């Protein structure tokens, strides 16, 4: 037998100006099952809430309906009120008498009638409400960070400094990512490696961080608070417990001409290699695809010269399993190579390079030790043309978005060039200059006013080679589209930032969404930038979209804060508005027939299959089961179910039916 309390709020004059609140309370008070009905000026205030609490206690109320502002505003408030008076908070419903009634209608009988029917509708719903308990999901307080660039490093350090264990997985032999390839960073022209390497060392030495390099994510199962991840540790062919990092193997390796990934193809490395001198960990791995032993069965020089016998050939990849509570994805991005551009030579001109390659030329640890030299003949270029927006903002090339960082790094490149080659001339062909960060505009101004970089507004139609020079044919739109032809020694393309190869497969492994360019999707573009739609998996850095270092670091710390917030609770408490598949006594066990249409409907993979077994362990039937940790409560599965075996707590079939019937009877 229901004993429902009805409380109609005047909300000052917001509701009472057009709705006769007293009449509403009176009329609803006559409904069967309503034990107590009243109206008050400010229900959400302390005296208002006390009114509710008192009524609950005095009249032993089994349910409460508050007619007030939108439930999106105060449902949590009134539910807490009920909870503090000893009534299950999910037995409290809120009727929207303000935003959807008093504020949108004129004063009059029909408005009051509508208010009455809305309150009555929720009274009928409350009669069908069941007391619900919040769901507690245990959390493993260990985080997995995928990707060891600056985003991953920052996130890992932040989480580790909160006292939680972190596993950092990086697919290259060293952490550092693209930031380690940079020469100097805008707008301060800080030496990139100098600011990065202390963090890299901190990661390696941090007691709470377990670093796996040359490793990749193999599989993810489970849900927030409880992910079971499998990590593939690729075979390094070097026993890191013995290796001292002396470097003798690299000196002796006969395969010396392998294009170095770290040097963006401009330099070479050996088959047994450390990607760069400041690598963390500073121990080599063997690149099986270029090693004489693995390819032809010969050589083995490294094992002969190794003073501690650390070389171990033919070890298989190792798989380790870990249980983590949260995952942070920081896999970063890539930039297009010059071969993407038919109009700039299909990549065949050696002196047409991309921005990352220019960074390596400018870098003191690069293939030219920091001197800007042409890759073709090693000469110092006297005239360089930089082309901005190569591929970006170009729907014809399939990349309509802006890559954000190129305007800044092109200005930086031109400045570095002018600093290194005093009599050099640099031209930048641009569409717009996007210098939006702190001190960014001043930086670009410096390039133009102090370093004499010439900015030409227009695009470049073609670059071709003639007599050792690169002829750049563009236009100057500020002079009315006048054709401009420059005989350059080198051309640097600011190519578009794109997602990493393998991003699609990684996203599918983790069941996170991605956009048409394979950048991972955030949960909400404005208000939830570091979360994904999958609970427990967070994003940071350029894997979500191209961005500069300050934004990446902020995002990484943001994601770390989310992880820390998650881990700061004993258990994960979730609202019990979730789907439940019914269970009943044998021999039926459940009306569910195991068609699993609900499984296909669920965007969160929250429907699992449960085998119902007899005492001997034989499977009687396989039915659906909702994982309370994953279900977000959309109810799509409920509408799918033909046998009505799955229902959603808080918006059950009975509740919704009684609401509709009530609306039409009043």
């Amino acid at each position, binding site marked *: 037998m229901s004993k429902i309390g009805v409380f109609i709020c005047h909300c000052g004059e917001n509701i009472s100006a057009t709705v006769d609140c007293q009449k509403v309370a009176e009329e609803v008070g006559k409904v069967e099952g309503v034990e107590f009905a009243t109206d008050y000026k400010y229900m959400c205030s302390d005296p208002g809430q006390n009114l509710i609490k008192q009524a609950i206690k005095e009249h032993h109320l089994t349910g409460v309906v508050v007619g007030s502002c939108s439930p999106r505003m105060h449902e949590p408030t009134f539910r807490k009120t009920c909870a503090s008076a000893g009534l299950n908070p999910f037995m409290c419903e809120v009727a929207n008498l303000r935003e959807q009634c008093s504020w949108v209608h004129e004063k009059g009988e029909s408005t009051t009638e509508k208010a009455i029917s809305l309150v009555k509708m929720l009274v009928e719903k409350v009669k069908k409400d069941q007391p619900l308990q919040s769901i507690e999901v245990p959390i493993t307080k260990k985080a997995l960070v995928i990707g060891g660039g600056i985003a991953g490093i920052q996130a890992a350090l932040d989480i580790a400094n909160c006292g939680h264990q972190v596993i950092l997985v990086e697919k290259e032999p060293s952490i550092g990512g693209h930031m380690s390839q940079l020469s100097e960073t805008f707008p301060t022209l800080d030496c990139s490696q100098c600011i990065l390497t202390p963090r890299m060392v901190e990661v390696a030495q941090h007691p709470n961080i377990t670093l796996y390099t040359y490793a990749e994510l193999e599989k993810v199962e489970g849900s927030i608070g409880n992910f079971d991840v499998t990590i593939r540790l690729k075979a390094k062919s070097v026993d890191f417990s013995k290796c001292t990092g002396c470097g003798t193997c690299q000196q002796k390796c006969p395969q010396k001409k392998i294009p170095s990934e770290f040097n963006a193809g401009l330099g070479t490395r050996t088959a047994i290699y450390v990607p760069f001198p400041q690598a963390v960990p500073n121990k080599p791995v063997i690149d099986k695809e270029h090693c004489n032993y693995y390819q032809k069965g010969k050589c083995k020089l490294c094992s002969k010269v190794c003073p501690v016998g650390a070389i171990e050939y033919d070890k298989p990849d190792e798989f380790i399993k870990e249980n983590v509570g949260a995952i942070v994805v920081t896999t970063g991005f890539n930039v297009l190579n010059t071969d993407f551009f*038919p*109009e700039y*030579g*299909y990549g065949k001109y050696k002196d047409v390079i991309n921005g990352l390659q220019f960074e390596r030329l400018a870098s003191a640890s690069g293939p030219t030790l920091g001197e800007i030299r042409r890759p073709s003949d090693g000469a110092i270029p006297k005239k360089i043309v930089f082309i901005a927006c190569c591929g970006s903002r170009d729907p014809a090339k399939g990349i309509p978005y802006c890559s954000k960082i190129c305007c800044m790094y092109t200005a930086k490149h031109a400045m570095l060039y002018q600093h290194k080659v005093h009599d050099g001339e640099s031209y930048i062909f641009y569409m717009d200059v996007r210098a939006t960060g702190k001190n960014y505009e001043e930086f670009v101004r410096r390039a133009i006013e102090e370093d004499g970089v010439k900015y030409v507004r227009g695009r470049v139609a*073609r670059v*071709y*080679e*003639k*007599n050792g020079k690169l*002829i750049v044919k563009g236009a100057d739109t500020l002079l009315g589209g006048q054709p401009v032809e420059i005989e350059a020694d080198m051309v640097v393309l600011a190519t578009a930032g794109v997602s990493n190869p393998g991003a699609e497969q990684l996203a599918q492994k983790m069941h996170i969404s991605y956009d048409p360019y394979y950048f991972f999707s955030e949960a909400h573009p404005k208000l939830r930038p570091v979360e994904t739609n999958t609970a427990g998996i967070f994003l940071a850095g350029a894997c979500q979209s191209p961005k500069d270092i300050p934004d990446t670091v902020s995002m990484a710390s943001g994601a770390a804060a989310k992880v820390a917030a998650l881990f700061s609770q004993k258990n994960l408490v979730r609202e019990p508005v979730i789907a439940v598949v019914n269970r009943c006594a044998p021999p039926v066990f459940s009306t569910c027939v195991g068609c699993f249409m609900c499984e296909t409907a669920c965007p969160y993979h929250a429907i699992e299959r449960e085998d119902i077994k007899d005492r001997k362990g034989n499977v009687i039937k396989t039915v659906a089961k909702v994982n309370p940790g994953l279900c977000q409560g959309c109810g799509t599965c409920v509408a799918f179910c033909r046998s009505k075996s799955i229902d959603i707590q808080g918006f059950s079939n009975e509740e919704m039916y009684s609401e509709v019937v009530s609306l039409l009877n009043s």
Partner: protein
Amino acid sequence: MKIGFYPGCSLKGTSREYNESVLALAKALDIQLEEIDDWNCCGATAAHSVNKELSLSLPARVLALAEHQGFKEIVVPCAACYNRLSTTQYELAQDEEKKKKVSEIIGMPYDGSVKILNVLQMLQKYSLDTIKSKIVKPFAYKVACYYGCLLVRPHKVLQFDRVEDPQVMDSMMSLIGATPIDWAFKTECCGGGFTESRTDIVAKLSGNVMKDVNDRGAEAVIVACPMCHSNLDMRRPEIDKYLGEDVKVPVLYITQAIGLALGIEPETLGLQRHFVKVNTI
């Protein structure tokens, strides 16, 4: 296998030698070309500059005639005709209304089922092996293959070869023993239809093309377009005046080059009609 043959106005007029060389080569390669009966002008630049419907109807009539005369494929040696016919076919395939309207205008049903080939595609499809087996005099010269504007653009309509650095003619020339050079003006405009109204522009644009050819030491320019040929060949005096030097490099049609390699007589290929003497070959 019969292939329909659409010579277009220029092959019957100023580019007679292209016509002669196409027919001679086809004969040598056992390709049966049959001229489409009652064909009309494709409209070229004139039609599409002044009237949209006219620019679609003229080519559509040619294609409709080809369909009705039972051709599954037609070869169109003139690059402009090839471009106009292909563009028309593409546009009418996208829009049923336009298709109906055009059918009304031309007074016959239009289906859009004929496959349009340029002369390079025809050779690629049917004759590469035959050519290889019949070479008697390899064309051992350095050549600059010039594609011009209309053979490969717009890519979404023609779907033929690479747009910025096409290779089909280059590989065909390699097949007959030539050394195609890598040069910068493969798809740069020769000046096109301005040959009459603004000969100065043609002198400049074609002049730039010939300068690059000359600088890179090519011994012949190979083309597959009558307009390009006449601008680079007939307008050579204006080009020489613009460049301030006499450029002697001859311009040959691809069909003439292949024909020479197969041992066909130069007169049969119409080489004597060129303005720039082909005596170095």
